[in-house]
């Protein structure tokens, strides 16, 4: 068994963050969140725990919806989606996310694709995990240029969901909506606090000596490198092949 691959750390972290969900939805082109969800599903099945349902959007094979592209949002509005992943071209210290672009809206340059369903799902999915591999000051900013979806809402605004964690290529943060703000929970292997502070454009709480992100144990690694990569390759064949190459190298 080789060393743990950085992406395996991310996948295992996601599986831990999802612990307890019954139904997780994963956006299109999100292989790492999908792999994390699949890992949780496999671990729960092995443990004889209640099943975990995964909906992968835009996938023909894993499309468990039959009412068109509105169904995900209806399903979330009904409280039937326990967890979802959001990212952003910019994410700020209040967990506001920007999927629209840089500069003065509407003439954003660069213009990114757009907000998709974030302005709704961020409000109604109880466990939203912010996931962005690139951990740099251009992504993690003091204040986003455009709020696609706000991290918190005023009292009196109906909100049953929101961000619980931020996972990056360097570290794992939790989010406290009462402050609001992020707290560094752990650093991934090979990264240190100074590096993360420099790469983060907003202030966050942290311990003096932050711990290391928990690594997958050998049994979990076997599952991840075998069954999970097999499952993943149905939807993300290129990602799975790349992972396999890098893990075996």
């Amino acid at each position, binding site marked *: 068994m080789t060393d743990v691959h950085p992406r395996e750390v991310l996948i295992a972290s996601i599986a831990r963050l999802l612990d307890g969900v019954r139904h997780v939805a994963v956006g299109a082109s999100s292989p790492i969140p999908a792999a994390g969800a699949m890992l949780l599903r496999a671990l729960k099945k092995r443990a004889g725990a209640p099943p975990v349902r995964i909906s992968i959007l835009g996938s023909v094979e894993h499309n468990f919806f039959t009412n068109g592209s509105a169904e995900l949002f209806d399903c979330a509005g009904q409280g039937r989606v326990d967890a979802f992943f959001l990212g952003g071209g910019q994410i700020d210290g209040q967990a506001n996310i920007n999927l629209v672009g840089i500069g003065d809206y*509407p003439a954003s340059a660069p213009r990114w694709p757009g907000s998709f369903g974030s302005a709704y799902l961020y409000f109604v999915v109880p466990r939203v995990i912010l996931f962005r591999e690139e951990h740099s000051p251009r992504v993690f900013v003091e204040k986003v240029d455009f709020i*696609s979806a706000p991290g918190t809402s005023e009292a009196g605004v109906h909100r049953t969901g929101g961000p619980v964690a931020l996972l990056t290529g360097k570290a794992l943060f939790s989010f406290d909506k009462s402050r609001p703000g992020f707290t560094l929970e752990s650093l991934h292997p090979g990264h240190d606090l100074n590096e993360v502070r420099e790469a983060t454009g907003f202030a966050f709480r942290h311990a003096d000596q932050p711990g290391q992100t928990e690594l997958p144990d050998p049994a979990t690694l076997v599952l991840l490198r075998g069954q999970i990569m097999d499952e993943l390759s149905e939807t993300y064949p290129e990602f799975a092949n790349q992972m396999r190459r890098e893990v075996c190298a």
Partner: protein
Amino acid sequence: MDLRGMASRVEAGMQLALPVDYAGVSMAMTRALIDHGAGDLDLFCVPTGGLQVDQLVGAGLVRSVETSAVSLGEAGGAPRFNQAVGEGRIALRDATCPAIHAGLMAAQKGNPFQPLRGIIGSDILRFRPDWRVIDNPFADGGDPIVLIPAVRPDIALFHAPMADRQGNVWIGRRRELAAMAYAAEQTLVTVERIVDENLLGSEMSAAGTLPALYVSEIAVAPRGAWPYGLWGEYPTDTAEILRYAKAARTAEGFAEYMAGLPGNRSRELAR
């Protein structure tokens, strides 16, 4: 009906509802619309746009785009769209997916509006003066909620696997296509093929059928979603979309790409 005749239904200044990448985009009609040339179009993406939006914008036919996102998926940003946005050449009405669906649902129900949770505190709302926030009348006070006005597109345009001779169209589980048709004044559909059996004749096929009542015109266009795929029929031609994404980085590259497309009429006439 041929694609040219169908395109002639589209007049300058009309609002067109177009489906998301994977739901059945009538790419065949993109080329016919560009040949036809009716401009000042308002595009309404259900709920996001891609290649078709980028090409119509690139061809200069688009006045505004209402959408939750525009991208070429794995091929990255939509180059002609993004450049037009940066230069302020098209009006943008940024939305979020369920708000797009809500606008259609209001029209489907003959309602002036549809409520929608979320959105409050988003800059999307700040730039949508056409949306309203009211206090939920069923709460004891407070509880603001967004109301999305009905959207009644002039034309819904999409591609589907098959239609029958009665004008019924099989849309499978892509029910956003039905929502577009319910809401729109006219619905134009390209299909892979016409089948002889009545799609409403068996409960199995009827379940995925949009009745002829909602369909204005049907044209046959084999592989009409290409380079997008069509569920149950053929996969997306990712290489072709990547080729487009690269070419369309410049206006010249875009023009060259479009001129070289199969089905381009000027090219066909030149043969």
